[in-house]
């Protein structure tokens, strides 16, 4: 079964067509990078996949079922979405933020059960945040806060993670930390992830597959190695790039 299937998906806002008749299949069990220039529609595509936005026309299915046919809480148990800018969590402790991830399972009134507490503890541990549970989210460092939000997504128990530029505000150490976490998650527990990324080298290092967009149209879909050629990069970024290899990793640099 495919993770996502898009059939002739179009999204229009007054005066502009953001996504134009997009057909696409995304595969489960791997990390997929969404690549493209600013304004190419990658964040929009991620919002469409998460059900945050409905397409103007066309159909999106997740695990063989149209997104529109998923009840909201069922979808939240299957899909976790991290917006590009995480909102301030005023006065909230880290553990409380992660606990919010259990909402799709327990609703507004249900009491948390032992398995909920186990999921929360597991998520905090996996993200390397043990010991920070009582800290206020707004006082954490950028990397810790981002991992806190990812821990909330893990506590959600969703098998698919959708992340919109999760590393754009982080230093390189935190970038590696966050992407490494997502990659491990998919390798070890069979989760799927779709990540909007700006940095092709980070994509090459941590992602398995790639979808590249130009003006709302798909120009590339395949294994990440397909992206790391001067011709493909020139097509996506309209910029001459050199590709070199060092210690088994491929790098792209502006020529």
């Amino acid at each position, binding site marked *: 079964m495919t993770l996502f299937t898009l059939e002739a998906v179009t999204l229009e806002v007054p005066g502009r067509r953001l996504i134009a008749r997009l057909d696409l299949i995304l595969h489960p069990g791997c990390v997929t990078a969404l690549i493209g220039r600013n304004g190419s529609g990658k964040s929009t595509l991620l919002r469409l996949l998460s059900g*945050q936005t409905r397409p103007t026309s066309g159909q999106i299915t997740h695990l063989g079922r149209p997104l529109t046919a998923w009840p*909201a*809480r069922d979808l939240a148990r299957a*899909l976790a*979405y991290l917006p590009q800018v995480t*909102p301030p969590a005023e006065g909230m402790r880290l553990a409380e933020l992660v606990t919010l991830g259990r909402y799709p399972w327990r609703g*507004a009134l249900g009491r948390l059960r032992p398995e909920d507490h186990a999921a929360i503890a597991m998520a905090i541990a996996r993200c390397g945040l043990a010991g920070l549970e009582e800290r206020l989210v707004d006082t954490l460092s950028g990397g810790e806060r981002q991992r806190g939000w990812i821990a909330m997504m893990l506590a959600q128990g969703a098998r698919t993670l959708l992340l919109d530029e999760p590393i754009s505000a982080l230093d390189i150490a935190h970038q590696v930390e966050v992407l490494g976490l997502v990659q491990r998650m998919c390798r070890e527990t069979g989760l799927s992830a779709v990540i909007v990324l700006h940095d092709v080298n980070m994509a090459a290092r941590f992602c398995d597959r790639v979808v590249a967009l130009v003006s709302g149209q798909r120009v590339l879909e395949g294994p990440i190695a397909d992206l790391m050629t001067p011709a493909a990069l020139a097509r996506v970024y309209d910029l001459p790039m050199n590709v070199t290899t060092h210690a088994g990793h491929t790098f792209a640099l502006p020529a």
Partner: protein
Amino acid sequence: MRRAVLPLAALASLGLWLLAAQASLPLAQWPDLPWQPDRMQLPQLLLTQGLMPRAVVAVLAGALLGLSGALMQAVLRNPLADPTTLGTAAGAQLAIVAATVLAPQLFAGGNLPVALCGAGVATALVMVLAARRGFAPVTVTLAGMLVGMTASALATALTLAEGHYLLSLVIWNGGALTQDDWHPAATLALALIPALAASALLARPLLVLSLGAEGARGLGLSAAPLRLSALALAVGLSALVSAELGLIGFIGLAAPAIARGLGARGLPRRLLIAPLAGAVLLSLADSLLLVLAALGGPNLPTGALTGLIGGPLLLWLLPQMQAHVPPGAETGTAQSTRAPAPGRRMALLALVLLTVAMLTLFAGRGPAGWGVIPPELRESFLPLRATAILAAAAAGALLAGSGAVLQRLTANPMAAPEVLGVTGGAALGYAATVFVHPAPGQLALALGAGLGASLTLAGLAAFALRRDIAPARLLLAGLAIGAFAASVLSAIMASGDLRAWVVLGWLAGSASAVTPAAAMTLAVLALALLGLMLALGRWLEILPLGPDVARALGLPVARLRLGLILLAGLATGAATILVGPVSFVGLMAPHLARSLGLIRPVPFTVASWLIGALLMVLAAFAARTLGSPYDLPLGLCATLIGGPWLFILLLGKGRA
């Protein structure tokens, strides 16, 4: 198309004015005007010394207010700033009312020095707070509205204490443009010319300042003296108009917004177009009223109408306008400390509430002075007092609870039933019921006010909640609705209809006329709201994180928003129906709860509920005792108690 709006509106205004002028003196006789007052007959005098200067005054005052608002918005980089929202106009009003009532000899030098003093002090208070919070627009507006509210409450208290001044002050509050000679016109014109020159000088430095204080310093401009002089100019202009004409709200807010909506990009253009827009707006409003009066309608003060035109216009312009907020400017408001033991604080609050309720039940001020109620009077007095206290507490709890829910829903510390125009809508519904129904009973009035509140909320929901709620946008929409309601109500007041006094009595708010059954109903509703808020804690925790996160977690965001808004509207409606649109308890109580460190949804909403009840019990006590044997308005006392307290709290928290 857009370019033609202002000239067309100006033409319409001129046409309407001619229509009205024609009614007092037919156009054919105009060439025979002698132009010398001592040789004129009454209709000729009315035209040349009344209507003509009035038209000129409207244009000049509108231009001055528009310029004042544009300057304030430029200095503070705040699309919500204007003489009304910064408390400037209310300060001038309070100074004039206080001088009229307490020390008339102060007017020896004319109105202007007195008005200038009041306007200056009020604005300075707001600016002291603004400087501490990095001039964050929402905080500045909050502080300005608080200062304005407190000043208006004081002014109303003063007028009510000296009952016979009431009528003249109602008219003064509404901003009457009626003229009997050319002196005010000359004064305003003499002020406008140097004011325009000064703003031309300030335009380019202000443009540089719009990059922010750091950017301006990098370009060799020091921000403080520039801000001070531009602000002083704006305050001076507003005080001048206040001194000559009274309170004409909203022009200073609407004119720059209109200028932006008409595509005036860049500060120098906006400083030029805003006075023009203000002039056209006020002139159009005044001409409309003149025609209405000439056709036999009521003679209404113009200030009452500016909101009528300005409110809907602003609502129409809002979608086109990007209410920009400088990035990071609002971070100061998010810094709060969290109480280590919220349960203990809530228990303490509940204890304080019960103690205060018991104390005010038994103690008070009777004909024999202060003391505990004597045993022989208990049987007759206590049930009455208990009913009033219960109604006040329940109403306060309902308002504060819905304020807390709205704040969580919008993640906006400014959201409150009063700010969002809900109480204004309830007041309109009440007034409509009084006027439409021949003999309205409690139930009819309750339904009318509730319907008004719900309609307002539904309109606001349809307008602002369709997309993600930008705080500044929602706020402007609410302010517009509030101004609309206020202007309709002051028009009703000024009409002199006897039924208006019923509405006025209710507007001020009084818990003493409530029946025991109504008080019990209110208490049951308040308890139901408390139960709901406890049950909805998890939703209220997720919603402030924004619609994206809430949707990703599977919350039915649209339905939830609608439901919570209706809940808040019903709670507000229920409270306002019985005790009047009490001022700002719904805004103050949640702020006080937050400043006590109660931030998590359940402690926050419960503490707001308790503080709202406490505030209103205290207000009811003050209302009963301060003016004994007469009752002071309840809402006024609530504002007087809570306003300064909240202001000090905001001030004390300091820079983040």
